[in-house]
């Protein structure tokens, strides 16, 4: 089945079974391996992308459901050669350790801050439920708080 959608600003045509998760369409069909596989049941958030600006866990989104939509992955979060403020904050606060969860974490945080630029700690806790085994939460929180303080 041919499914057309926009990925990181480019129109793409995917010839895949309609129930193929968006995650695997991105990773295997389009070679965009920045979005990660962590659990397959939308429990960990490593696969978070933006679909029409909304954060979604792509392991649980069949490609047929994003026909015609605009998908942004970690690779397309900022224009080539530049960094999104969340990415910059992640570097400034040295957030990542192994880094495997961080694509999803950054996509979740950037979506939250786009919707709510100055979230309370409670709102952040509710919205950001990504799992990180290396335990970077203290720095994730500090980086978000720093971003939330900026205009």
């Amino acid at each position, binding site marked *: 089945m041919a499914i057309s959608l926009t990925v990181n600003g480019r129109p793409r045509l995917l010839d*895949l*079974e309609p129930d*193929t*998760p968006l995650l*695997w369409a991105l*990773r*295997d*069909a389009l*070679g*965009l*391996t*920045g*979005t*990660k*596989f*962590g*659990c*397959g*049941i939308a*429990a*960990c958030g*490593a696969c978070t992308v933006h679909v029409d600006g909304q954060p979604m866990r792509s392991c649980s989104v069949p490609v047929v459901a994003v026909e015609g939509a605009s998908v942004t*992955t*970690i*690779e397309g*979060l*900022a224009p080539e050669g530049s*960094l999104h403020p969340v*990415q910059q904050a*992640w*570097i400034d606060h*040295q*957030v*990542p*350790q*192994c*880094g*495997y*969860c*961080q*694509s999803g974490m*950054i996509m979740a945080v950037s979506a939250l801050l786009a919707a709510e630029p100055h979230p309370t700690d409670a709102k*952040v*806790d*509710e919205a*950001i*439920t*990504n*799992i*990180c*085994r*290396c*335990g*970077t*939460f*203290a*720095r*994730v*929180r500090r980086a978000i708080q720093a971003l939330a303080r900026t205009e």
Partner: protein
Amino acid sequence: MGKWTRRAFIGTGTLVGGGFVLGVVGAAFSPSRHGVVSDDAESKGELNTWITVTPDNMVTILVPHCEMGQGAQQALAMMAAEEMDADWSMVRIKEAPALDAYANGYVARAVGGESIPGVLGRAFDYGTYRLVRWYGLQPTGGSMSVRTTGRFGMTVAGAAAREMLVAAAAERFGATPSELTVSRSQVHHAGSGKSATFGELAAAAAKQSVPSSPALKSGDTYTIRRTAPPRPDIPSKVNGQAIYGIDFTLPGMLYAAVEIAPVYGGKLVSVDTAPAESMPGVKGVVKLEEAVAVVADSYWRARTALAKLEPTFDDAGHGGVSSQTIFAAFDQALGAPPEMPKDAATVISADYQVPFLAHATMEPMACTVRVDGSGAEVWAGTQDPLNARATAASALELNARQVAVTNLLVGGGFGRKLPFSLDFIGLGARIAKAMSPAPVKMIWSRETDMQHGYYRPAGMARFAGALGGDGKPLAVACHYAGGGDGESVFMPYTIADKRADAKDAKHPIRTGAWRSVLNSQHGFFKEAFIDELAYAAKADPYTFRLNLLSEEPRFRAVLERVAAMADWKSPLPPREGRGISLVESFGSIVGQVAHVSVSPDGALRVKHVYAAVDCGDVVNTDAATAQVEGGIIFGLSAAMKGEITIAGGRVVESNFHDHEMIHLSDAPQITVEFIHSGHALGGLGEPGVPPVASAVTNAIFAATGIRIRRLPIKNQALRSAAAST
């Protein structure tokens, strides 16, 4: 009956490396390990095994360790660059290839490294290099990279490189080495005003002989290793460019999904492969001794086709094994509580229990293997690429030198990807062999990953303690089952009668090294029991411990510091409490205080964890802090929620919905301080983990009067109506 000794865990054969290969006489003439260089070293500017200088004035430092978020590669490069007085901005860090010349034997220094006399150090390092080269080992683990490879390898290589560059400059300037100074990748001769960069000197320096025992800098002249430069691996981890084992691709690559016998040791009995063979994109179905794999042109197609199969496996006779039977066997083996002195005024006893735990690295097991007529290639993220080579070679019945391994970024290790637990490499290789010559990337589902681990062993301990009439402890003893060693059962407290005896209770569940290994169980057992003893003595748990540390000044200093950090004595509102814990592991002493609150309906909130760390000295203070923060979160997740249970011989939990992890909302504030004691470097990857469970359960007791002796905490009732003392 075993008495604890401070060094009980150190084996007696510490000189086996040097002695085994070279003999006593040979030891005196041993080459240096870092003198091992390529045939064309001179033309490449390769000054020694780990350090190359090129005409563009770049210093390339090879580090024989993986990068799994712990920052070891950068830390070791900082240690080498420090000794060279290199310009840090002109340093490039690369992971050493998985080749024999870079086999890593420095980890042997962790076993009695202090007690090897300097004159024999060269022979020890070279001898162990020959041993691990023969074995094929290049491990990263045991919190050893900085304190062994860094301390005994990188610093020496850096200092050796410096002497070679200075020697080359001396010849060029017509001066003596002692007249020259080095700073920021330049060698200066004040007398003549001449100077030359490392790049200009590289070719001549590479011709110098490699000094085997160069002079090292003293700490008061450090300008690099105690700073906190940004980690070079981080930029690619925020923009999606970082390539982990699971991300690797090759043209023509196929993908494999696999189902493995659910009971460890079980075999594939039968499977009708037809339902998968006709599915879209499927290239083959591979039947193996313990598994069946579907290979297709995409991972999702492989996985979808695999789901059509109904393989049957046997249970290796372990179908009757469950968590219940395992803990019942532990209980039986532990026997009666240890004997206590008859004249004790107070005797208490308590049992503690911890479950199996999965590593649950965020990146599930994955590897790419290509097998053809001449050999094989492997691409994966592991904690030992040379053992990955040996594992693949063995699975393919090849000689190790017919297999080339490229190590990639590791999406979490924690011990799962250590040597001898690289089962997934052997499995991926066998699948690839069946599909030769196409490269095959095998990806484990989270379910497969969760259920085919090398688990942190379940454990149980039965403690007894005795107090004299004055409230001072006379004896503390435990029987334990499920694993332990001299380091993990060690208590620094001055108590005349301290005993810990292992009781045998076997089970067939595959176990392995989980971050902090046996300290993850015993850190909980012993610091929970000491806390109970303190309360039995009607003493403050901090003061009780402090009064028993007069003979251990380092432990005392750590305990005092963390209590001060936590403002231990300040009053807290009702239902809030602090717990303290003090555990040494991997050469570092860590004290932690947890500040918790427990709501009337039993909701636990860990508000703040304070950690004081004596690891001797600190390389990259920020990365070091991150390691302690990470260890605390890792240990807290396990303490609060982690549990792998067994039924019918197999693991019950399958994903993050049932092997739960803590989230951002559960994470406490964390404050870390280091005590620069000047003692030998200790590790940091693991030592943050062992104290946290007992710090939290001790805090829960202070807040509620409820004593938790079984983990995870989520299984225990914390409601006020159920409070008990």
